Structure formats: C-alpha cells, structure tokens
C-alpha cells in the first residue's frame, strides 16, 4: 500500500531566470521602440501584442549585435553583470467579484558567497540584517510569510504567491549544518526580533520535517529532508509593526519607487493582506555557471469592493493606497506596473487611464494573460503632473465568467461536544477530463489526538487509496502529528479525507490567557502539478515579469501550484479558572456553618458551673485545706 515515492514530484532543479544587465537594457530599448509607434489604443491591440511578443523573441536573437558601445566586442564573453541588482513591479488584477488584487514584488539579486570563511562586510542593495542571519545560520533557502485573512480561491482565482493565514516559516539549511534543531531554534528567535513577530513561539511542538512537500524552490540537488524545517503559527497577527521592518529591508525603503504606496491604514483595511520574504539561490544566466542569491519580497493585498471601494466599481491607485506614484526607485534596474487587461481586449469592460501603448503577455498560472505596462523608469509615464495615478472605470455592470480554478481545497471540523471530533479535508479537481496527483500535508497539534486508523479517502463515493503515505505520530508536549499523502484526484470530482480525533485535557499552565477563544490548527497544504490550459513557458532565459517566474517550470503541460486550506479553530475542554477560589470559599462556608452546627448539636452538653470565688475566699480555702477542714 505504501512505498517510497521516488519520482521527483516538484520541479526543483530548473534554474530560474536571472536576467543580466544587458537584457534589461535591451528590453528597455524595445519598450522605447514600441512607445514611439503611433498605434491607437482601441484597435490593433492583438496585433500589437503579437508584434510585441515577436519583439521579445527578436531581442533574444539579436542580443550579440545590440551590445552597447560601452561594452566589449562580441568576440570576448559578455562582461560580468553588476554584482547586485534590484527590480520592482506591481501587478494589478481586477477580480470578477468586483474586488481588486494588487501584488508587489521586489527582487534583489546578489552575486556573493555567504558561506565562505571571511565575513561579507559590504552590503549595498541586499539588507545587512538578513545577510548576517543567513551567513550565521548557513541558510540555503528561507521562506517566511505573514498573512491576515484567507484567500478565497473560488471567488478570486489563484494568487500569484499563496500563503496560509498567520505566519509560516520554512527553511532549508545547508548540508554543512550539524545541529539543525539548534540552528532552527536560534533562527526563529532572531527572525522574531527582526520582524517584530512572536516567532519565538515556534518550537518542537509545532515544527515538522515534511518528507515530500516543500522541495527547494531554488537551485540544488540536495533533497535530504533532514535539513528542512516547516512551522506555521495560525494565530499570528499581522499589523503595522510587521510591515515597518519589512519595508526597511527594501533598498529604497518606503521613500521612493513602488513602496511609497504601502501605507498601513489602507493595506490593513482589506480582505486579504500578505507580506512575504523568499530567499533562495538561483542561476545567474542560462549557462548556470554560477549562482546568485535572490531575495524576493512580496506583498499581496485584495481590496474589497464595499469597504474600500464604497460600492462603486471604480478603482484607482489613489483610492486603493491613498498615494500616487511619482518616481521609480533610483536603485532599481527596472520598475514596472502591470495592469491585467485580458478580459478587456477592446476596452468594452472597463476603461484604463492614462493609456499606455506598452503591452505584455505572460503565461502565468496556466493561463495566457495580457497586461498593460507602465514603465516607471521612463519619465514620460508620469506625464505633465509628474505623478501616475491609474484609473480603472467599469462601463458594464456585469463581468464575464472567471476561469474556474482547477484545484481548490476546503477543510472543516465536524462532530459535537468537547471530547471527539472529525477533520474533513475536501479537495476539488475541476478539470473536465484530466486527473492529477496532489500531495497533501497536514500538521495537527498534539492536543488533538488523531486516530489514524479512521483515516478514509473517498472520491466520487468510492475508496481512493493514496499511493504514498508518510505519518509521524505525535508525542505529548513534544511533537505534532505529521501526515503526508499522495492522492490521485479523478477528473471533475471532490475527494474527501476524514480523520477522527479526541481532544486532550491540558495542564493548568498550558492554557492561554484567553482559552475560550479556542485553539488553532494550521492550514493543510496541497501541492500539485496542475495541467495547464495553455503551454507554459519553460524557456527560462526569456525576460519575463517577476510574478510569472517565481515557481520554476519544468514542462510545458503543467505548472506547480500550492493551495492552503482554512485553519481550524477547535475548542478544548476548558476549566473555569475562577472556579477554585469560588468553590473553596463556598465549600468552606458550607462546611463551617452546616457541619459545625450539626456537630455541636450532637455532641455539646451543658454543665452548671459555680462562679469562681473572690481572692479572700480563695486564700481562706487554701488555709482550710492545709488544716484539713471542709472548704467554704
């Protein structure tokens, strides 16, 4: 029934594209060419897009000829690109429900060696606080995210970078680390100081070592899972105090470029807010002779139509962020804003102003999307007012159908009472005819005692045996449950995974100060290679926007996706903590009054007693006793 799964499930060795400075310049030149063409906005858009796409390819071929004057001749190898570079981009995607999704990505690439003996001492674009942490703990990959809210896949589609509610941290250490647990403990403490979050609550009771999920997203053939640690804190709150240090890690801070838009009063007044940091090694160029370190900082936010949009279907940068863009970050080699206009090819759905002739097509999340591009490094983008405020105004009241997400997950707790319960995880495969396998990772805290013999996996009413199961039982107060399964999802079906559990009674000091709120169970993670509707771009050497190049792509017919389910909130049997004091008072009173009275009634007898005589009489009595005469 269970055997070791040997096929590499997630593409991990494909190098992610790392554009050099040359390419960035060429793209810029290409964009300029497009800019000068006098094509009107409404017509010829598809042709323009096709031409522009051809322009993208032409860039590749003619690269050798287009070498700028300052560079060397094509005979010698191209000059080494700058040691570090920074790119920023913002993607705005209107959602079918009327909400709007904005995704910031900031990427710093740095060619250095963190692991050599001598310390790296000169930091320019890369944040020093993070660099010191990485070299001290020999970290190969670090992924941390802070999320407030839950991503509603069925209403909003797929996010560019998924994240579970709360805080999630997973780290791949270098294989030179001898004590991974000790390094993990110290790393979480240091990160809690950097990000002002309670990451120090990550300890052995909520850390797991997945055996198949969370393969490295960067370079590397090392798949020894001993160097991987994963932990999630579903209760972690995200607020300005987490955003402030996150913004300070950017080269321009929040003073210039796209980061000026990040005002906390608007960002946290949203349906979904997620800020993340991803650090990994990638290839420098397509030859992959050397690796560079890539740091991506991402911020995803979904603004609600009614709370932020006042019910009106009209969005602008000022309405979303209460700021407009005035300049690109001077340290950035590219700074772009993409607006998703795929559903609006002729401009009939909404109107986008100011207009821009730049278009870009990208295959992202299994779909070919078209974007209008605003290049902030070009001063002309800001126009006369020296500020850029994009405005999207909807014409039609109805919007078309959304592409149904192919993979979707749900989770809930069933049962009643405070003793037992059942966890149900539902996985939806919405593809009409293709089946594909998914890897389900479940981390359940030790105080929910899972009965793994009650585990059932059913699809379409029939039993669906997983081809790989890895289960690590919990140890009270030491280790959580870890369950990983590879399940084949039949096409157009719902697969249900159920497990029964029993709730434990915690010790007095283990209850939180507000135990009646409940205890959280972290989200399940569903990782899959989902069949794609259009051919994915496996050519990683092409210049592509940051949002489409995060997950490495190995084959054309599928793309990697990760879906997080809802976290669970479970009530444990909670004693009334004011109870002992009240009970003691009441009991002692009852005992004293009731029992004491009864005892007295049953045992007390009354005797008559003479009052004691005065002093003179007592002296006389003493003398009489001595004389042997009867007393007075």
């Amino acid at each position: 029934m269970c055997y070791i799964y040997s096929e590499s499930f997630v593409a991990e060795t494909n190098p992610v594209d790392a554009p050099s400075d040359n390419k960035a310049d060429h793209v810029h030149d290409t964009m300029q060419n497009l800019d000068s063409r006098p094509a009107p906005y409404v017509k010829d858009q598809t042709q323009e897009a096709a031409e522009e796409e051809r322009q993208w390819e032409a860039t590749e071929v003619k690269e050798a000829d287009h070498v700028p004057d300052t560079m060397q001749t094509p005979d010698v190898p191209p000059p080494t690109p700058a040691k570090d570079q920074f790119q920023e981009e913002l993607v705005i995607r209107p959602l079918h429900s009327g909400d709007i999704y904005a995704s910031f990505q900031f990427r710093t690439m740095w060619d250095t060696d963190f692991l050599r003996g001598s310390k790296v001492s000169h930091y320019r674009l890369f944040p020093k606080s993070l660099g010191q942490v990485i070299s001290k703990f020999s970290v190969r990959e670090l992924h941390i995210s802070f999320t407030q809210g839950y991503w509603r896949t069925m209403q909003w589609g797929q996010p560019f970078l998924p994240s579970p509610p709360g805080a999630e941290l997973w780290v791949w250490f270098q294989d030179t680390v001898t004590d991974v647990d000790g390094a993990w403990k110290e790393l979480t403490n240091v990160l809690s100081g950097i990000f002002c979050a309670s990451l120090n609550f990550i300890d052995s009771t909520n850390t797991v070592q997945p055996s198949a999920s969370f393969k490295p997203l960067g370079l590397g053939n090392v798949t020894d899972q001993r160097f991987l640690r994963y932990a999630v804190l579903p209760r972690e709150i995200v607020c300005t105090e987490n955003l402030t240090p996150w913004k300070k890690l950017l080269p321009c801070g929040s003073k210039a470029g796209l980061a000026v838009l990040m005002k906390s009063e608007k960002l946290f007044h949203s349906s979904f807010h997620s800020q993340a940091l991803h650090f990994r090694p990638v290839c420098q160029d397509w030859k992959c002779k050397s690796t560079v370190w890539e740091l991506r900082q991402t911020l995803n936010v979904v603004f609600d139509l009614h709370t932020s949009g006042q019910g009106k279907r009209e969005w602008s940068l000022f309405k979303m962020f209460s700021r407009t863009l005035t300049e690109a970050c001077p340290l950035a080699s590219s700074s772009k804003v993409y607006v998703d206009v795929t559903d609006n090819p002729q401009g009939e759905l909404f109107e986008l102003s100011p207009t821009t002739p730049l278009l870009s097509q990208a295959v992202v999340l299994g779909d070919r999307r078209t974007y209008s591009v605003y290049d902030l490094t070009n001063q002309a983008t800001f126009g006369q007012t020296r500020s850029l405020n994009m405005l999207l105004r909807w014409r039609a009241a109805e919007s078309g159908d959304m592409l149904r997400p192919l993979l979707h997950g749900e989770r809930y707790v069933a049962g009643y009472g405070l003793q037992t319960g059942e966890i149900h995880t539902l996985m939806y495969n919405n593809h009409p005819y293709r089946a594909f396998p998914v890897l389900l990772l479940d981390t359940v805290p030790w105080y929910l005692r899972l009965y793994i013999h009650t585990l059932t996996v059913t699809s379409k009413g029939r039993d669906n045996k997983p081809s790989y199961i890895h289960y690590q039982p919990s140890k009270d107060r030491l280790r959580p449950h870890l369950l990983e399964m590879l399940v084949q999802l039949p096409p157009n079906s719902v697969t249900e995974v159920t497990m029964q559990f029993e709730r434990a009674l915690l010790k007095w000091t283990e209850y939180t100060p507000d135990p009646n709120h409940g205890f959280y169970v972290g989200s399940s993670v569903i990782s899959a290679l989902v069949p794609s509707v259009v051919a994915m771009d496996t050519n990683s050497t092409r210049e592509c926007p940051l949002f489409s190049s995060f997950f490495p792509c190995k084959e054309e017919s599928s793309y990697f996706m990760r879906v997080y389910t809802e976290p669970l909130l479970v009530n444990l049997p909670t004693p009334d903590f004011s109870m002992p004091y009240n009970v003691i008072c009441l009991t002692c009173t009852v005992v004293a009054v009731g029992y004491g009275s009864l005892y007295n009634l049953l045992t007390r007898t009354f005797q008559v007693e003479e009052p004691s005589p005065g002093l003179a009489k007592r002296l006389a009595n003493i003398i009489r006793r001595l004389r042997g005469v009867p007393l007075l």
Partner: protein
Amino acid sequence: MLQAKAGQFFSSGHTNNWAVLVCTSRFWFNYRHVANTLSVYRSVKRLGIPDSHIVLMLADDMACNHRNPKPATVFSHKNMELNVYGDDVEVDYRGYEVTVENFLRVLTGRLPPSTPRSKRLLSDDHSNILIYLTGHGGNGFLKFQDSEEISNVELADAFEQMWTKRRYNELLFIIDTCQGASMYERFYSPNLMALASSQVGEDSLSHQPDLAIGVHLMDRYTFYLLEFLEDIHPASTANMNDLFKVCPKSQCVSTPGHRTDLFLRDPGNVLITDFFGSVRKVEITMETINLTAPMVKVTSHIKCYREELTVLSSRTKG
C-alpha cells in the same frame, strides 16, 4: 567657562536613555490601556529615544483587531484626532509574550542567549530608564493579561537586582492603574522616582469614549500626561515638579501620587527630558582640525606604541 558649560551637560550623570513601556491588558474593551502605552511611546520617540532603546510590550493587538472600525490605527482623542499608533511602530513583545516572567527578565537582563537585541534592555550604570506600566491593578498587585499578577514586592526586588547589577543610573517609574500608589510603596533601592495615577483605595478612571469605536480611548491620567508632554520639546527645561502637577484631582477624579524620597537629586533640578528624551552628547570645541594630513601622524603614533609594547614585553619576559 567652557568647562562649566560642558559640566552642565553631564550634571545628571547619565549618558543614554531607555524606556520600557508595558501594557498588560488583553481584550478589546481594554483598548484604552494600549492607547495609553502607545501615547507614551509616541512622546518618547518624538523627544529622541530611538526604537533600539525602547522595549514596547503590548499584551493584545488593538490596531488590527477585527473589531476596530479603522484598522491599523489606535486613537487617543475622540473624533479620531490623533493616531498614536502611527506608521513607524516596532512592538518588541506582543500578545502572549507579555508575561510577568518576561517583564522581570527584561528588567534584570536574565534572558535566554538566543533573545534578539531588540528584546533586551541593554542598559548600563549611566542609563536613565523610564518604566511605564498600565493595566488593571489593585492594592499591591498589577494584573497581567487576566491570568497572572505581579506584586509590589516582586517589583521592588527586581529594581534592587537592577541596582546591584548597576543597570541604571536613575529610574522613573510611572504607573496608571487603580490603586497605583501601592505599587511603589515597597521600593527600597536608591535613585528611584515614582508616579502613580491614584492612591491606595482609589480607582483610576478612563477619560472619554468614542462612539464610532465603541470603547473608552484613554485613561485620564495618561491623557493629561500626553497633553503635557506634547508641549515638551527636546530642549525644554521643564522639570519634575511640573510633572507632579499633571492631572490634579479636579481633572483626574483620583489623586495622583509620587514618591521622591529615594531619589538623590532634588526633583526641581531634574529635567523632564532626562527621562523622556534622549541624551545627545555634544562636545564644544573652538579649535579647527586639519583633515588633510593625519595619516602620517597616525602611523607614527602606532610606531611609537609598537616600540613601547616590544620594550614592555621584553621586560616582562625577563
């Protein structure tokens, strides 16, 4: 004359400032305690103490609480006049981390080795420390998060530990709770000055509710303290006697108290900025420094020292 001026700068004997600001209450209806702490944080930052010298402990999150109608804000005045949360805040201990144990460990410096710098009180014997506590309290104790409490004896002992370990030069202790004066009754270490919002047997009252947010926004004592501090700027010469007059009984309903018998200096000579602001070391010099040719001189100095060292080492060897 110049020496006299320089002497004035260091008359208080402190060279750096620290602040430990603690809010001990959990739950949405205790919004005002978080607002209290944040308003003191805001004043202290404005007067110059940097985030690296402030240990801010908030037991619950009010700004991004789902009940907050205006997320990422904490207001101190009704009609949303002043957002004390701001855009640039760093909370060091939050949520369940605010416990009696962590608070005492921060004060005494006995933290586990993996604790990051931002969570430590790295004061020395020339530090002036401001400690501000707010929450629910009683006669002789302060409640932490509705589940544990710290007594005045524990607090006094913690301060004594700080004194014996030379972790402060002077310490100002402000507490805004019911019966707050009971918390400083047991102090016995030198150089401690304490202020409380109410005497033993009195309750500290809250100031004003905001109907949009639905809770009381601030406590009276800290509200008037904030108003007083808004008038202070880094070069201000207001002294502690002015601080003692903040919030008289007519405004506060309770009687604020203070204790200065353990303090060596006269409170009239102690500037507000000695505790709420940050020392900036300025050396006045009248001479011009030539930056063009110092390298030769430095190397020649090094040569001299090296020679001296070799002579010394040869002497010790023999």
